[in-house]
């Protein structure tokens, strides 16, 4: 039920005057362990990356099972987002914006796969599998070597080719 009690109106007048705002202080303190379970974000500096690691070869095997149907062999050729290639195409009439050609941060790959993919079964991959998939996609894009291992230290150190080609229209800090 939404309305167990009447709305608390004591501060409405203050809001109308755009002076100060005050609520009824009904927030319930969150247990740090619960917060940790909800907080799955990875920052561009690698903050939030979990323990674990993955290789290109491991990623290729996971990709074949979890990703290939929608994204095609080697990240290309199916109807959904193209993940690989497009390098040098951003000034062309039909740019191909992929992880390799466009994404500014490698950490975003881990963050996005972990929260949203696979499309039909999100939140089912292990952290090792996500590191492996990230490594495979970076390898296919020619950004890391075939024997590189992705983990909480190596992933944030990857420099994406398009990293310096973004102009901030709003200051980042």
């Amino acid at each position, binding site marked *: 039920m939404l309305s167990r*009690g009447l*709305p608390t109106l004591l501060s409405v007048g203050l809001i109308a005057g755009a002076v100060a705002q005050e609520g009824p202080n*009904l927030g319930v303190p*969150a247990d740090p362990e619960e917060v940790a379970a909800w907080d799955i*974000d990875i920052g561009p500096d690698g903050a939030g990356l979990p323990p674990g690691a993955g290789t290109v070869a491991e990623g290729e095997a996971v990709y074949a099972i979890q990703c290939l149907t929608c994204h095609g062999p080697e990240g290309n050729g199916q109807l959904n987002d193209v993940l690989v290639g497009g390098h040098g195409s951003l000034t062309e009439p039909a*740019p191909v914006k992929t992880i390799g050609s466009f994404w500014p941060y490698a950490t975003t790959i881990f963050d*996005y796969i972990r929260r*949203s993919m696979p499309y039909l079964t*999100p939140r089912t991959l292990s952290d090792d599998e996500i590191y492996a998939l990230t490594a495979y996609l970076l390898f296919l894009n020619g950004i890391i070597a075939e024997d590189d291992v992705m983990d909480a230290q190596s992933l944030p150190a990857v420099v994406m080719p398009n990293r310096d080609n973004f102009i901030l229209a709003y200051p980042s800090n």
Partner: protein
Amino acid sequence: MSEREPNNLEVVAGNGLLHRRLFLTGGAAALGAGTLGQLTAARAQEPPPWMRIPGAPMTGHGSRARYENHVQRLTMSVPGTDGSGGSRTPIEALEGMITPSGLHFERHHSGVPDIDPDAHRLLIHGLVDRALFFDMDALSRYPMVSRIQFIECSGNSRLTGLAPEPVSGTCGELHGLISCSEWTGVPLSILLDEAGVDPSAHWILAEGADAAAMTRSVPLAKTMDDALVAIYQNGERLRPENGYPARLFLPGYEGNMSVKWLRRIKVTAAPMMTREETSKYTDLLPDGRSLMFTFPMDVKSVITSPSPGLELAGPGLYQISGMAWSGLGRIAMVEVSADGGASWAEAALSEPVLDKAVTRFRMAWRWNGAPAVIMSRAVDETGAVQPTRQSIISAKGTNFMYHYNGIQAWRVDADGRVTNVHV
């Protein structure tokens, strides 16, 4: 020309545009016989059948007239899915400033979640003194505000605006990622103040409770200024496809940032560079660089009637009707041209004209039956003028994808058919 036309129609611009006084003084009622909704009802039996028997009973929740069921959102899904993608508001079939909730455009990244409001909580954490949970019961007890404001997807209009040749489609198909509602909710600043924001914080990350757990970074200044945790839409609880039971609402900002099904706000020092703010919603320029964090939606307008699919029945008086909006403030003026931009005249703005809301404009037009090109141009209170398509493309190329706000032109053929044209 009909004998029923009002007298003293003052021509104010080329090709038959008439002074907006016609609308401001109530004279527009006389336009009824000549507007798109022609008086087409056939002479029927008298009295009509619905006056001969009692009507239908009362209902617990109303629905629209069955004759209006053809007015539908147009859905476009991502391949292989039925819940990812978007649907467009059929703006050519609507009037006024408010979008009916059932026709509000949609943009989802993993379908519409079926959220039990009793099991839904909002977590605020990160750079705060105390991490807090709020359930819906708690949120309902906070002081709320109501605002009539638009949401526009920043990809709106690009299908036609950035195409080399004009794309055929209805006004809604081409420009229907815009909707305007009364949103009611709790100012986010109250909740952030309760959690105690650390001075080192400059951004927040908002996360939705959909299967994509979609996230966007938002400047803290915006959240403290006018952001809402919206709970009601047009007086009723949010529709599921608009974020039930709670959504972030960021007036004037690109729609993707008003995260639906809001479950978590993390207060941060810097943006998190999520997929949605890096690989998507960045504007690729001709030199290969991209603009990032282009948040406000710029001033824009479109004529919704006449528009493709709505035909003019013959020469005579017509009402040109359209929508104007700006993410920067109020609409100050809308001008209309009926001669392809050679001359312009000021349209009547329908009250109320509100901050970051859709404003309805109307213009009286005596169509002489010759081919014509009609277009609208909006100006907002900051002085920003809606640009031409060509000036946008000259400055930003055709690859930027987002925040296209060029002037839309419709061609009216001699037979009354309306098509999309580039001018």
